[in-house]
């Protein structure tokens, strides 16, 4: 293999090499330094005159006389079932002191798009044991559901709790594993993850890729692809159900921006490259199920929103690819509520595929709608109370206000190790809903009310008078039949 010593320019993370033979786009590159170390990179742009290489480990120490070798193959990863329980670097090398991974296969990390015709529709819900998720924004196998967070919020704890507790009820015997990819997180955070995996014994069914904050930024571009390639292998060739946690996607996007800037590309919004959407899609879309295959890939990317701004290009474009989002709320966090997941901002687009009779429970959809509506109303009233005071509220409004408080403290709040089954979650939901006048529960139809409304609390005296306060718009006495039939 030829070694070139024709570096023409080094600029940021990029190395420009001249007078090469034909080099393939995306080819893997080894650059050997005077001190004997080798850095790895990838071809980003190739032409007859010049080859542009992005160096994963950073360009520090490279000089114009460094040797450049083009390996003639693209970036691949060794995969095997033995990866489970291992800790690997951001570029797939073991860093846990263990032996190298004996590959059963070497796979290109770019990955191809799943043929839409080959995809199978997600249909099984995953119980995370967290009430706000299970009850109101249910996660479904094969879904990609990011956590939108901000600096200082406990997104890592939540991700860990999900990884620990996630299961498909009734199918606990199926093989389940976590693939965890860290991009630019701190040592401390990484330790937290690893310790927790060790503590709970989850490590032996996990593959961990670590690119830490002080690791080269450019390596972050391949870390999630390494992780997803391993996940695809485990899911679709080893029939396992894989939960992929990618943290933090914001760091990934910054690395992408860095490359774009170094190449002097025309920047898009906030300096991120114009192809950010497509690039993110090639990561997020590597989730799902395939017809005829047993395994599945569920993705939970974690995105920290700069300045909690949900319209920032990264969360904005992500939300257009992923099937919903779980949003962490700083206000809830300040109130000391864990997990501070705000159901009003969160959404699970695949929820309805996974819930209902035979999956969770027949009343789940209606209860979720009602909780959402009631909490939203109670939350709105808080603003009003700040102006007019609690005394001037009507009895009905006061109930909603109290409901919002209780909802946060009893439904949202739970312990870091507390695992609530769906029955328990719905039980809490009904208990809270029954504190409201029966007449305002307009999202729940009569049959469901009769079947699930807590018996001991039924028929308080003041009810008839309360019923009249229902807003005229919401009253639908002529369409009860329809309400039950319409299912979105």
């Amino acid at each position, binding site marked *: 293999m030829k070694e070139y010593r024709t570096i023409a320019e080094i600029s940021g993370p990029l190395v420009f090499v001249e007078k090469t033979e034909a080099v393939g786009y995306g080819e893997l590159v080894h650059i050997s330094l005077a001190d004997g170390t080798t850095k790895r990179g990838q071809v980003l742009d190739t032409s007859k005159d010049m080859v542009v290489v992005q160096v994963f480990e950073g360009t520090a120490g490279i000089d114009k006389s460094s040797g450049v070798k083009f390996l003639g193959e693209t970036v691949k990863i060794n995969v095997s079932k033995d990866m489970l329980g291992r800790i690997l670097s951001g570029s797939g090398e073991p860093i846990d002191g263990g032996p190298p991974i004996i590959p059963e296969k070497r796979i290109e990390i770019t990955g191809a798009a799943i043929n839409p015709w080959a995809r199978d529709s997600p249909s099984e819900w995953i119980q995370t044991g967290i009430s706000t998720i299970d009850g109101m924004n249910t996660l479904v196998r094969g879904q990609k559901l990011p956590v939108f967070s901000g600096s200082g919020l406990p997104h890592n704890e939540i991700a860990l709790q999900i990884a620990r507790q996630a299961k498909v009820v009734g199918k606990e015997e199926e093989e389940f594993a976590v693939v965890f990819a860290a991009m630019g997180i701190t040592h401390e955070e990484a330790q937290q993850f690893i310790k927790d995996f060790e503590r709970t014994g989850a490590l032996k069914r996990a593959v961990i890729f670590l690119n830490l904050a002080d690791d080269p930024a450019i390596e972050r571009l391949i870390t999630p692809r390494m992780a997803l390639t391993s996940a695809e292998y485990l899911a679709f060739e080893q029939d396992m159900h894989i939960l992929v946690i990618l943290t933090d996607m914001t760091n990934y996007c910054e690395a992408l921006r860095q490359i774009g800037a170094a190449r002097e590309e025309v920047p898009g919004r906030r300096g991120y490259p114009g*192809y950010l959407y497509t690039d993110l899609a090639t990561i997020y879309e590597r989730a799902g199920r395939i017809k005829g295959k047993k395994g599945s890939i569920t993705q939970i990317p974690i995105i920290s929103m700069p300045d909690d701004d949900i319209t920032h290009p990264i969360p904005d474009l992500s939300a257009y690819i992923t099937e919903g989002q779980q949003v962490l709320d700083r206000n809830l966090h300040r109130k000391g509520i864990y997990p501070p997941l705000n159901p009003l901002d969160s959404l699970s687009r695949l929820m309805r595929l996974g819930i209902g009779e035979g999956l969770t429970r027949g009343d789940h959809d209606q209860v979720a709608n009602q909780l959402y509506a009631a909490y939203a109303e109670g939350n709105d009233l808080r603003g009003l109370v700040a102006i007019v005071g609690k005394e001037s509220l009507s009895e009905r409004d006061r109930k909603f206000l109290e409901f919002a408080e209780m909802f946060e403290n009893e439904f949202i709040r739970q312990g870091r190790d507390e695992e609530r089954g769906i029955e328990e979650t719905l039980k809490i939901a009904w208990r809270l809903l029954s504190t409201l006048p029966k007449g305002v529960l307009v999202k729940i139809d009569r049959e469901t009310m009769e079947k699930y409304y807590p018996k001991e609390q039924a028929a308080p005296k003041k009810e008839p008078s309360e019923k009249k306060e229902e807003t005229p718009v919401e009253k639908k006495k002529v369409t009860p039949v329809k309400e039950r039939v319409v299912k979105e």
Partner: protein
Amino acid sequence: MIENSDESGAKDGAGEIYRVAGPVVTAIGLKPRMYDVVFVGEESLMGEVIGLVREKTIIQVYEDTTGVKPGEEVVDTGKPLVLELGPGLLSSIYDGIQRPLPVLREKMGDYVERGVTAPGLDREKSWNFVPSIQEGDQINGGAIIGTVQESEHMEHRILAPTDAEGTVQSIKEGGYGVEDVVCTLDNGKNLKMMQTWPVRVPRPYKEKLMPEIPLITGQRVLDTFFPLAKGGTAAIPGGFGTGKTVTQHQLSKWSDAKIVVYVGCGERGNEMTEVLTEFPELEDPWTGAPLMQRTILIANTSNMPVAAREASVYTGVTIAEYFRDMGYHVSLMADSTSRWAEAMREISSRLEEMPGEEGYPAYLSARLSEFYERAGRVTALSGSEGSVSIIGAVSPPGGDFSEPITQGTLRIVKVFWALDTKLRERRHFPAINWLTSYSLYLSTLEDWFTKEVAPDFLRLRGWAMAVLQKEAELQEIVQLVGSDALPEEQRLTLEVARMLREIILQQNAYHKVDTYSDIKRQYILLQSIKKFSDLATRLIPLGISVEVIAGLNSKLLLSKVKYEEKFDEELDRALNKMEDEFKNLEAST
């Protein structure tokens, strides 16, 4: 796909790759025309010429370019991106460049790998060709030369290519493949059942007609309030949870467009899967056959190559035009045009073009209007009348309607169906907001409504809109002071508006009767509510309270009529009851 060029065998243009940067490849040594299809590299990846700079050719490649090297061969086909049009199109599922996805899966497994081509039309299949012309007939381009029964209920009319003209020398009948010659002209031209057409070129027609006929969908809020003309254009915001899918299904099932083309452009894989699994299960209510028999699906998810995404909407509209030329009414749904525009933006930035608003290329609105302009009701070259109606979904980021794609779209389209999350939350279906939606076809459709439905149809519609508008204003007051503070007339307005909402605007897609409402019935229902309102208005000054009127039995009956199979009978009963009750009330004063 690419035409196996029988005339030229044009392989003269072979050059080599100079540079590879992602999906954009630069080649030298070629003399192509703009938008020629080229095959790039050893794996023959398909691409399209999108720029010519001095001796260099800029190519966008439809597939992943990893591993492609400078110096590899680039072959110019000398032809633009063309589609195969002919029997076998119906019920197909294609990617953005007309590769059948089920065939791709058979060929290369669950992932879309590179360098694999598959013809758009099945070559093996034999179709029973029945000629509709005879030897000695003079035909011109685009004429119907015969038919093929593609499925039980669908007749595929075989068109002569648009440039074929002459006297028929021989014509065959019987089972033939799409590439077999079925007709020969005296000038030696051989006609096959399959023809090809470049996707970026609108298919020609004889004359464009005014959009004077509504596309009847059986959905009251659409037909009565915001009608779309056959050959018209409409936009719907594609936010999630607004019931977009249900609306699309209803349109596909019930509208009187015979052919449905659905383009899933840059959408989520799992959502596309839902479309791909649900559509084939839908039943055609008119024939009982699967709806897929008159449907073509084009699926290009967000992670499939961006250039193919850009091409997918053109693929869809070209197929739609082809069926239009046979004399069919076609509805094309593009979901979502925002993703399409983003593909343009991405390619534009790769070309280092000067960006316009929000990084979109400066030609964004020109491309949008070119696309929507391919809609229309026409007299085809064959003399038959057909139409393409385009319904495009837009997905504004963060729900911000001021962004360039939404604005560019709303400037062109004539109908806006504002799907509304708030209505959905209130379980108001279809969740189309009657205050923000609009249709600009009302004036051109006036004659049709007057003639085919009733002379006062539009007047009634105007009345209903006014009541609903008034309700919105009154609701603001009610929010502040409560409905008790309103005078009786205004409370009656609220009551009538509620009837309009519940009886006319709301429609249950899952109810076997209510799912489709004949345009005449829509009119009768509206008329009945107007009657109720008129009778009630007379009583208010006599001191009858709105509570009493709202509690009338006939009002309840009226609200149930739409669910009744014996619609006319039940309606009569409700109307008679109404007259009686109002008479009694009047007598009681």
